Structures are given as structure tokens and as C-alpha cells.
């Protein structure tokens, strides 16, 4: 363990469509230093959730947006975006489709 490493507890808000995988929990508190670590910790705690967040090669699925408070991590540092104690992450699916 690296004694200089600082981690914080962050909260991830779980959409209703994923709560069957989180024992119906609306919000999960996890220890992480970055957004990526938080998502990996979430997937480790709830393995059945993993395939709906990540592709088989481990990339975040394209339709999964992660917001740090009100900002999409794609406008920050992506999965490397650092988090602070008490940061709230929101999982927001991109909703799209059509007949063609």
C-alpha cells in the first residue's frame, strides 16, 4: 500500500434501470481517487453490473455518460478525472435509436 496515496469516498447515483444489480440501492458510496477507479470499484462490488457498463475489452460503453456533479467527464479528464471526498457521480445513459 502506498502511504502517500489519498483516496476519498465518492457517491455514485444509480439509475432505476440498474438497481436490480445493486440490491435496489439508489446511491453507492465507494472509495476512489478517480472516476475510473470509482466505476471499477462499483463493478467489483456488483459483478453482474459490469457487462452493462463496460465492453468485453474493458472500455466504458459508448452510451454511458458519467457526470461529476453537472459536468460530463468527457469535458474533463475522462476516466482519469480526479474526485474529491463527497463527490457525487451520476450515470446517464445516452438515449437514441430509430427505425433505420
Amino acid at each position, binding site marked *: 500500500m502506498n502511504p502517500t496515496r489519498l483516496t476519498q469516498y465518492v457517491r455514485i447515483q444509480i439509475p432505476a434501470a440498474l438497481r436490480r444489480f445493486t440490491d435496489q440501492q439508489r446511491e453507492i458510496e465507494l472509495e476512489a481517487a478517480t472516476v475510473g477507479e470509482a466505476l471499477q470499484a462499483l463493478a467489483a462490488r456488483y459483478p453482474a453490473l459490469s457487462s452493462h457498463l463496460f465492453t468485453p475489452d474493458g472500455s466504458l460503453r459508448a452510451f454511458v455518460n458519467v457526470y461529476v456533479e453537472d459536468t460530463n467527464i468527457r469535458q474533463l479528464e475522462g476516466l482519469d478525472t480526479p474526485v474529491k471526498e463527497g463527490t457525487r457521480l451520476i450515470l446517464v*445513459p445516452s438515449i437514441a*435509436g430509430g427505425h433505420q
Partner: protein
Amino acid sequence: MVRIPEHLLEAIRQYGERTYPHECCGFLLGTWEGDVLHVQQIKTIENAYEETARTRRYLIRPEDYIQTEREALEQGLDIVGTFHSHPDHPARPSVTDLAEATFPDFLYMIVSVYRGHARELTAWKLAPDRETFESVTINQEVLP
């Protein structure tokens, strides 16, 4: 199974007719009661695609999702699914719908609109293996 009041089904049909020949879209708000999904409200959303693409595609911005989720929570509801129209096409999930599908418990309702008139309205959810959609029975509620 999904329970939804008759007037909300009619509202989806009418919105699909109003936006024809474009695809309409919106959110389904409600609650889960065991294995039964109870849709209690709908919220129409403007299709975020550019004009030329709206006849065959729909897109809801993440910002609209966040705003709607906040409004839903204030009423003790959740976003439980979405609806969209298929202008001049069957109310069946397309290859695009499958490619863009999100989570297994997210309900997708589709209304077919032919020549401006709504016809079939169906409900679907993504299979756990993410390979296909499964049909969901719609239990229409007639409120007093």
C-alpha cells in the same frame, strides 16, 4: 409486464402523429412494484437530431435526462424507460435501436405512425445478454 393508463398511451400516439414524419421521443416516469413496472407519467422531449435525420432517428440529450430525472425524483418517481415513434415503419425494434440500447430494465415503447396516423404501440426491454429485445406485455389501465 408494464401497467400504463390508457390516457398516457393515447398521449404517446398523439405525439407521434403531431411530430410525423419525424420520430418523436420522450421519457416514461414511474415505479417498479416487484416485477411490474407502473408508468405514471410521460414527458415529451424534442428530438435532438438535426432536421434531416429526424425522419429515421431520435436522440435525447444527456442534459434532458438529468433534468427529467430531477423532476421525477421530486415526485417520488424514476425514469423507467423511453418511447419513440417509427414513421411509416413497424413498431418493432430496429438494428439501430438494438445498437443504441442501454440497460436491461429500461423499457422501450415504440409507436408506429403510418401516413400521419398512429397504429401499433409495443413495449420492449433489452435481454440480459444484450443480444436482442424481448417483448413486454402492456397492461392498459382504464382510470375512473
